[in-house]
Each structure stands twice: as structure tokens, then as C-alpha cells.
């Protein structure tokens, strides 16, 4: 296995085993979930936005492959504390770069699941 193409690098396994903010977020203002129909990966992201549009807190729940879950953890770690505008400016390219290892198109879908979810979540206020 060529190490430069290693998909499951140590820092990714770290995120998988010890994810950033994994669980429910009780006082969420915004949330969205989606799945990857081919894999069955599921990710739900909840955000607490302050009036200025900054992510005060966030968390994810999910089930699926290492790539989908570790990438969700990495995404939230990177964007927690950022503004909605910064989230919107964060492209799919950025997500793949954040993840690191090069992925085949099939697995890119797994990696981009949480990115798709957060892009939708900022438009999805939680109804109370």
C-alpha cells in the first residue's frame, strides 16, 4: 500500500475514534441531515448560530464509513467558531483538501457528505 495514497492516515483514524463534538446539540438553532444512498452513510449536523451569524457551537451525529464520519469531525473542528459566510465560502475542493488523502470519485461522495449537510444546515433553522 503506497503510503502517500494512504486513505486511512493516522490523523483520520484519530478523528474516527475520537471525533470532534459527536452527539446531539440541545440548543441548536440550525440543523440538517442527509445520507449517501449508495453507501448508507448518514450525517446530521446541528449548529448554534449567534445573532451575528457566527457558529457558537456545533455537533454531528452519524453512522457510516470511516471517511464519512472522520470527515464530519474534521469539518466541524475546522468551521466551529467561523461565520456563516465563511461556511459558504468553504468549497468542496477545500473539503477534499482538508481531508487530505486523494480519494476516488466513489469515496469523494463519502467525504463530501458532511460538507453538503453543513451547506444546507446554515439555511435550515430548527423549528420549535
Amino acid at each position, binding site marked *: 500500500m*503506497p503510503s502517500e495514497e494512504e486513505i486511512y492516515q493516522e490523523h483520520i483514524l*484519530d478523528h474516527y*475514534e*475520537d471525533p470532534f463534538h459527536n452527539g446531539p446539540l440541545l440548543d441548536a438553532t440550525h440543523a440538517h441531515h442527509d445520507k449517501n444512498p449508495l453507501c448508507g452513510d*448518514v450525517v446530521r449536523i446541528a449548529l448554534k448560530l449567534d445573532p451575528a451569524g457566527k457558529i457558537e457551537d456545533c455537533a454531528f451525529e452519524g453512522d457510516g464509513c470511516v471517511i464519512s464520519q472522520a470527515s464530519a*469531525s*474534521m469539518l466541524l*473542528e475546522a468551521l466551529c467558531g467561523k461565520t456563516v459566510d465563511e461556511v459558504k465560502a468553504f468549497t468542496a475542493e477545500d473539503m477534499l483538501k482538508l481531508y487530505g488523502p486523494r480519494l476516488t470519485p466513489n469515496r469523494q461522495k463519502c467525504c463530501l457528505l458532511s460538507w453538503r449537510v453543513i451547506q444546507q444546515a446554515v439555511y435550515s433553522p430548527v423549528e420549535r
Partner: protein
Amino acid sequence: MVPLTDFLLDASLRDDFPLLAQDVHPGQPLVFLDNAASSQRPRQVIDAIVHCYEHDYANVHRGIHVLSERSTDAYELARRKTQAFLAAEHAHEVIFTAGTTAGINTVARSWGDANVHAGDELLLTPMEHHSNLVPWFQLAERTGAVIRHMPMSDDGVLQLDRLDEVLTERTKLVAFTAVSNTLGTINPVEALCRRARAVGAVSLVDAAQSAPHLTTNVQQMGCDFLVFSGHKLCGPSGVGVLYGRETLLETMPPFLGGGSMINRVYDDRFTPADLPAKFEAGTPPIAGAIGLGAALDYLTAIGLERIAAHEHTLVERAWSGLSQIAGIRLLGPAPGGSDDPCRAGLVSFVLDRPHAHDIAQLLDRRGIAVRAGHHCTQPLHDRMGIAASTRASFYLYNTPAEVDLLIAALGEVRERFRPTGRRRRGRIDA
């Protein structure tokens, strides 16, 4: 009768399959265990296709020149080979299609739309492939018929003793797979067809996973329809077979309209052709059918019984090896678990971690090709409470050594993803 276990085909037949002799990653020879999705082809089949294109090809039927006659003869010979392979009574009961899915849709639209009405019941099993579900859901939606499911035990065996609960005079169709592509269960085809006929229902056997491995005899099965695909039994992609009993096919309206399926075309109406042309609209998969005929020759020369015995040896070895792995859940009935062997040559499993897709990716890195996902059986996966599983499926060219590689590799994978108290460190490149 070939004994079910401890029988192995000679590994030299691997030489017939050019694709198998390759490293998929540097230093990692291919271990192809994704045969239930699609098999590989022996040189004999590839040669038959090439020979057709290089020497004999022309459009079939009606052509009054040597090439068209040669192609027509070869195409019709493939039909008779298929008839023999299925032990069908008539050659014109064999319809060439684009595949299993096309065959099932043909029955659902032609027989179904003409015979199924609101309130009628269509009886399926919980282990069907989407191709043997969606066409019936669509038929139910068009007609108002009701979808029912046979009872099934937790280890994935149909409960025939409870069949009366769902099989009644309202049942118009019993459609089921002969072998589950996920569980590996071998279903009691004869009994199910008999029970269907007893209530006046029509039976359809999805033989996509059985025809490549087990002897098929439609008369002994007593089925009304049977379908399979070429690409799963060493044949070309893009060709399949719909078998139908003559009397049924004759009373069914045509489905696809076009060239060949007509007798006479007027300005705004037509009369259909006789069987089998009636259900073969347009230019058929000529080279595909000829290649399929070569594949059936190849399998028959080796012997389906011997192939099944070989695979059974492999799956027993896989089952006992895999079941040693901590945190694994093997799906479907255990091989040799009962007097009645109901385990085909594939095994699906779930590890507590990682996910099926990660397993497939890591096995691939070791040269091992398996399938991960729902294998087009989402309702079955829902019922088992899992989103995905990993499947290793064997064919005549697989070896015990390949099974051992799978078991060893899976042990490593599981070890690699065992929780080890890791702590997230932030990004490495940070």
C-alpha cells in the same frame, strides 16, 4: 453426485481466464471475489465474440446472404443451447433479453398489465434483489394490486410452514430468487412453484444467482417464468434470458414494439409475430447471445454439479475462518447447518467496525475485490438492521488459498480499526 465438500476443481482452469492473471496494485495479485456482481469470462467466450465480429457478423433474420445466414444460425444455435441448459420444452420459450432486469420488467408489463387487477396480491420474499421488487411495485401502482412478503426466519430461510399466511387465492404471482445474492440462501424452488400453482398463481424464478452455479431444469422446477443474466455466468454483458412457458407467452401481449416482433404493420396498427420473435423487438444482442452460448458450453463441459461442489468447499472454508474473527456477524444460514444444504457460494458479513466500504477499500489494497453496500437488497438490509454489508462471492476459478487470503486480510482490517484509545491531534499538516 459429486460430494458437496472437499471437492475442488483443478486450479489450472484459471488459465482460461485472461483477466485473473494480473496485479491490481504493484505486487498485489488480483483475488477476485466479486462474482455475484459479475463474473469474468474465459478465453473461449471472448474468442466466440471476436470470431463473430471478425468472420460471421451481419444482422440476423431475413438477410439473404451468407453472413446473415451464419449469424442467424449462430444466434439460433445459442437459443437451442440455452433451451438445453434450462431443459426447456421448446426453443421458442427462450427469449433473449438485455438481462435479468429486462426479463422481469417484460413479465411485469406484458403478463402483469394483462392479468393483474386491483386487490390481487403479488407475493415476494424479503430477500429479493431490487430488480425483482421495483417492477412489481410499479405494477402494483399501475393496477392497485397489493405487495405481500413471505415469512422468513432470522437467519434468512423462508418459512414454508407459514406460507399459508400469505399465499391465498388472491395471490396472482409468486416471484422469488432461487439464490439470495446477499444471504446466500438457496430457496426451495420446486416447492414454491408447486405451492404457487396450487392456488392458481403464476411463478417467476429469479435465477440470476442460481443459473451460474446450480443445474437449472425449468420443467422439474415447474416454474412459469425464469430469468437470468449472461454476465454472471461467464457470458458477455448486455444479454440475458427470459424463459416462459409456451402457453403463457402465447397468450401474453407483446411488450416492446419494433422490428422483428411484428407479423404485419399497417398505418396505425400491427399484428404480432410468433414466438420467440414476438418478445424480441429490434436488433437483438447478436454477439451477446453467441457469447452466452459459448459460456453455457464452457460451464456445461465442466459440469454445474462440480462447480457447485467446488464453491461449497470454498464457502465452508470461508465461513469457518471468518466466524473466528471477533466482532463479525455472518449473514444467512450456515453452510451444512441443516440436513438440507441451502447455502450458495457466497458469504456476506458485517464487522462492528469499520464500515463495509472501508473494509472493501482496505481489502482492495491487498488485491482482494469484494462488494460492499446493500447489494441491491435495501429492504433486506433494513430488516437486518444494517445499512450495508461486505460480500465475498466465489466462482469456479477461486481457490482455497484465496479464501485464506481473505480471512487473513480481514483479521488485519479488524485489528487496524479496533478502538485503541486514540486521541485526536488536530490536523497533521497543521
